[in-house]
């Protein structure tokens, strides 16, 4: 404001000086014109600095407002004469609109408003919640170009594969190359044609331990269209404890034992020498008495591998304790070699024999992702029947089941008819062997209960945006400690689920932050506001459209009112005036005067 007055005063001073000079001028020809020109020039000059506003009346529905949200196309709203409103942080170029700081407050304070015309990508779910009962007209912008859906596991265990899946919406006329980049190297890529929606699934095995950020980069030739961070945290884990009970030592056990041993898995191995005489190995763990199997000894293990003969040879007490422990979550893998089940546990699965051609190899396959193993030089005749409740894990190429699984209480029972997988190790196919046994053991072994789990809302917590942290705790009695980077949060208990607590946080900086729940510290990635923009926009678009669809058609009679709108006169007029009068003054003094 003050600046305006200064400008006006300065302008007046300048005018006075000019008029004085004009009057003192010897050449009195055209003096009126000159004075007039001076006044216009100075006046226009001042008005260049001080804008002139005037008020006009516009016909507008009193109960309706126009709300411009992000992504509004300026051309589409340029023709609208009515007063426009917008929300904070919405960057509208060239379009003038009044900013509403809090939409729900605004609507409450203007109870006459019943109708909203929303332009752009719309509002998000929480904002839409406040608009219930209002009549909404949604003029959606064109769909955004970019990744509109993406998901991956942010926390991996070492040696697990990172799978990034999602959808890319390409509205442009050019093909786009989408690639996943990590550790300075593009690891996977896909090409997306013009005007298509394509889903992608990138795979890579992260080599790091700790935190790292991969990037999803959309490229058109050399131009980078977008660059979205994919934070991944890889951690080590406490290895599972395995117990092997063998009726006789064979190569399969020997190789499995060595492999687990070399991979640092705690392992106990017991094989029978004679009646009630056993040889036992305790690898990577303390020794214990394994001559009698009971619940207390089994409690120390996550996984029991046993052959059917040995299972049959155990006494009923031992078998009962195995049964109890499986029901409590222990994994059980039974190796069978004959068609007749000899124990009730192994009788869960029916078997059959199928003749095979001589000299044919066994081609195993993972049912989960149809991963094909290298062939084993075996003539397999024993197969498993599958039940409705079973989950087959390994089949051969023709689909006959070789490893089957079923749930028993908390635990899982696996049965396998594959007798010698060590042939893979002998022929140097180490990865096949590792994949096979990892799959089997991971599937069966006792699942580890986390002491807590944390959910973050929204999916991509961004800096300076409200983030909700939901923690599920094992113990519900005590108020948990929630901290982010040493900032203590105040958790709130869920009304229905007493073990669930949540807290709100407004992240202050991007990148990895430490989220502490009780004693446990986990890293959490805070995105930049611009990350995953296309995805967020698409979500808002979908939400708003859904909301409009769901909201009942309330049709209020609209009344037309006069609404006062402030308009500004374009400064170009003043500039033209200034230019013309200054030009006249110059022309007069240079040419007409001579």
């Amino acid at each position, binding site marked *: 404001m003050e600046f305006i007055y200064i400008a006006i005063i300065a302008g007046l001073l300048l005018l006075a000086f000019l008029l004085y000079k004009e009057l003192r001028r010897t050449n009195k020809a055209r003096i009126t014109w000159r004075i007039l020109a001076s006044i216009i020039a100075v006046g226009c000059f001042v008005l260049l600095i001080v804008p002139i506003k005037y008020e006009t009346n516009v016909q507008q529905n009193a109960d309706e407002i126009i709300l411009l949200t992000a992504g509004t196309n300026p051309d589409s709203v340029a023709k609208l004469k009515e007063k426009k409103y917008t929300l904070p942080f919405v960057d509208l170029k060239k379009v003038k609109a009044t900013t509403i700081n809090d939409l729900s407050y605004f609507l409450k304070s203007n109870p006459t408003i019943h109708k909203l015309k929303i332009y752009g990508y719309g509002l998000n779910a929480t904002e839409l919640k406040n608009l219930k009962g209002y009549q909404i007209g949604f003029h959606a912008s064109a769909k955004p170009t970019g990744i509109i859906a993406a998901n991956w596991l942010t926390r991996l265990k070492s040696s697990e594969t990172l799978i990034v899946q999602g959808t890319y919406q390409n509205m442009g006329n050019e093909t786009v190359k989408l690639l996943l980049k990590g550790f300075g190297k593009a690891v996977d890529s896909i090409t997306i044609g013009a005007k298509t929606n394509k889903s992608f699934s990138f795979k890579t095995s992260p080599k790091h331990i*700790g935190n790292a950020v991969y990037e999803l980069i959309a490229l058109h030739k050399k131009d980078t269209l977008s660059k979205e961070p994919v934070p991944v945290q890889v951690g080590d884990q406490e290895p599972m404890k395995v117990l092997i009970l063998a009726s006789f030592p064979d190569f399969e056990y020997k190789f499995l034992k060595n492999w687990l041993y070399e991979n640092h898995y705690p392992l106990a191995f017991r094989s029978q020498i004679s009646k009630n005489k056993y040889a036992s190995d305790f690898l990577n763990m303390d*020794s214990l008495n394994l001559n009698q199997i009971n619940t207390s000894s089994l409690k120390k293990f996550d996984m029991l591998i046993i052959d059917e003969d040995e299972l049959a040879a155990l006494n009923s007490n031992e078998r009962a304790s195995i049964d109890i422990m499986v029901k409590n979550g222990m994994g059980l893998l039974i190796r069978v070699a004959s068609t007749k089940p000899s124990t009730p546990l192994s009788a869960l699965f029916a078997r059959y024999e199928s003749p095979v051609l001589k000299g044919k190899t066994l081609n195993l396959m993972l049912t989960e992702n149809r991963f094909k193993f290298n062939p084993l030089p075996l003539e397999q005749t024993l197969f498993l029947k599958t039940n409705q409740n079973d989950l087959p894990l390994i089949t051969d190429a023709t689909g006959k089941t070789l490893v089957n699984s079923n749930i028993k209480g908390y635990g899982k029972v696996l049965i396998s008819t594959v007798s010698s997988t060590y042939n893979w190790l002998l022929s140097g196919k180490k*990865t096949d062997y*590792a994949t096979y046994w990892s799959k089997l053991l991971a599937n069966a072994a006792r*699942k*580890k*209960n*986390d002491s807590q789990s944390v959910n973050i809302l929204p999916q991509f917590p961004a800096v300076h945006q409200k983030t909700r942290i939901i923690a599920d705790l094992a113990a519900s009695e005590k108020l948990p400690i929630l901290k982010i980077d040493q900032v203590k949060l105040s958790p709130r208990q869920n009304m229905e689920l007493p*073990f669930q607590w949540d807290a709100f946080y407004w992240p202050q900086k991007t990148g*990895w932050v430490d989220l502490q729940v009780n004693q446990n510290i986990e890293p959490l990635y805070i995105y930049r506001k611009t990350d995953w923009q296309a995805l967020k926009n698409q979500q808002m678009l979908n939400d708003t459209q859904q909301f409009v669809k769901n909201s009942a058609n309330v049709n209020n009679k609209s009344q037309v009112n006069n609404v006062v709108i402030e308009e500004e006169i374009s400064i170009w007029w003043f500039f033209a005036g200034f230019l013309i009068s200054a030009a006249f003054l110059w022309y007069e003094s240079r040419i007409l005067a001579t």
Partner: protein
Amino acid sequence: MLKTEGQNWIRNLRIRWISLNLISTLVTALAISLVITTIGSHLMLLPYWLFAILFPIILCTLLLNKPVWKTTDRDVSRYVNHQYPELEESADLLLQNEADLSMLQKLQRHKIENIIPNLSKPKEPFKKLYMGLAVLALALIISFGFSKIHLIKNINAADPAIKPITPVIKEHIPPEIADFTATITPPAYTGKTGRKQKQFTISAETGAQINWKIETNIGIKKLKLIFNDKEMVLLKPANTAHTLWNHSKTITKSGFYQLELDGKKSDLYQIEVIPDLPVNIKITQPKQHTTIDIGQPQKFNLNVSLTDDYGVHDAFISATMASGKGEGVSFTEKKLSFNTSFDNRKNLSLHKLIDLKSLGMKPGDELYFFIKAMDNHGQSSRSDVYFVSIVDTTELMSLAGMTNGVNLVPEYFRSERQIIIDTEKLLKEQSALPVTTFKTRSNDLGIDQKLLRLRYGQFLGEENENEIGGDHDDHDEHAAHKGEGEKFGDVTAIMDKYAHKHDIAEDATFFEPEMKAQLKAVLTEMWNAELRLRTYKPQEALPYEYKALRLLKDLQQKSRAYVAKTTVKTAALKPEKRLSGELDKIMQPVQKLTFEQKEKRIANLKTALALLESRKTGKNFAEKDRYLLSETEKYMIGAAADNPNTYLNALSSLRKLATGNKLIVKDIDLVEKAIVNMINVEGAKPQTQGAGTASALYQNYFNNLIKVNR
């Protein structure tokens, strides 16, 4: 003074003349300079801006040589007089002042002034211009041709033998170094001469001697060469001013090195070793397994091609003969030479005819051989083992195989043998027999062979000619049976009448497919034998007969199971005594082991990756991170010593990162990429799955569900 029309015309002509001439000169100058530049730049490797100098010089020369602009009106009028007889030699009059002219001249002038506008413009200057343009076109073609020739030469130069070994790499050289040369002397066996290069990056043959000659612009107290970050060599100055340094070293392994000038370290430079590969041996003839049948010459051709990168020094055949059978097998080894000089040639193709008889091989013997070659560096290589065997006919004729075990089809085998015996007998008696008898007997044998073939055809379920002694003669037989009287009520008879029965389906599947294939091969051989016998060439038929017999023998062996007699007699078991031994003295062995991870390399590298990632976000390295970085550097030095090509850049980037405080994402990317390369592919490991939080509520829910189910 207003000019007359004639004067104007002449003036115009003059301007045209001059301008066209000038353009033509310009074009010519352009053409000449273009050709010279092309030749100069392609042959003498002069720079292209030579053109900018040449062109003005040539243009000036040409212009001075022929100063066109000096053409006056008078010259033009002279030319016009000469060119146009209509002007009657009076063009000069137009140029003179009208007042000075006599009456007659005025008249004449008036006359030609009327003529002049109707005259066509002279063609002469245009001709010159066209000439100039033609020269330019020619020059363009020539220069284009030159650039192409250069390209062709380049293609020739791309030949690896001619191509310089060290590619040009941009290097950072310490400013103290004024001049340096590295002289590479390849070892003698390569037959290459030494070469000099002004580049620190070295690529040399295994065992090459490298001599560095370094000249510094200021006196330096200490100059060190550090190889692979371990081996330090302190150089001795060659002069008192401490500016000239010399060092020689024989390299056998790839790696890298750097200079240290008074404690200031230079960049890392890589040393790449070009290894000498052993001789590549390729046997084109014979096949890996060759059988020489009876009747075929007992010799074979051996064709080998040998290639080496520097030269083959020697090659020979190592042959082993196996004779006898069963326990009486004896082996004799022989070294056969190729009887040619090798002269350290790079490519050789050798031939040798090996006569098995001269090696002392008899029917039934086998020859195993391989070729061993040595290159001029003393590295030897050998080929696969090849087998050549001579079929033993006496073995085939023996009845030893028949006397024991199962014999499925014995009589047929005797027949084939009989045919062979008969054929040999016929051949022996050939000279004594008249031609017609010989032919009939040969033909008869052919018929026997055919019958035999048909019998075997039965096994394969061959349709036609399946009755011996006559053709199936189509299916009119059904009609012929009519006379026999009909059996009423016999269903099978009625069915037979209408059915078209060929053979029984089971016959067709009597043998395994593999056996069938072999049987078919037998039939083919029999076909061939029959053809020869029927065309009275029993001598030629003999090898086919033998082969058929051999295949039949194999078949026979295949369908036999052999169980040897045993004489062992075990004592009868006493069931009451079984499993009743005393076990108290049996120990229960307990083994306890813990796997010690000796190498923390992988774990460290993995953590280093995460550390670099955090550095990317702008965090500086902490003190404890420095230790990890130095460990990573150690690993990378090891990797770079083996593969300087892949890891050297990453190593220098890592050093830059460790010392500098500036964040350069490109360097981090490079290091990360190298570390990912260094961590080999890992197999999967069994991982415990998570099961969410174990809230008491969930547990209760589960327990109650179980209770309800019971």
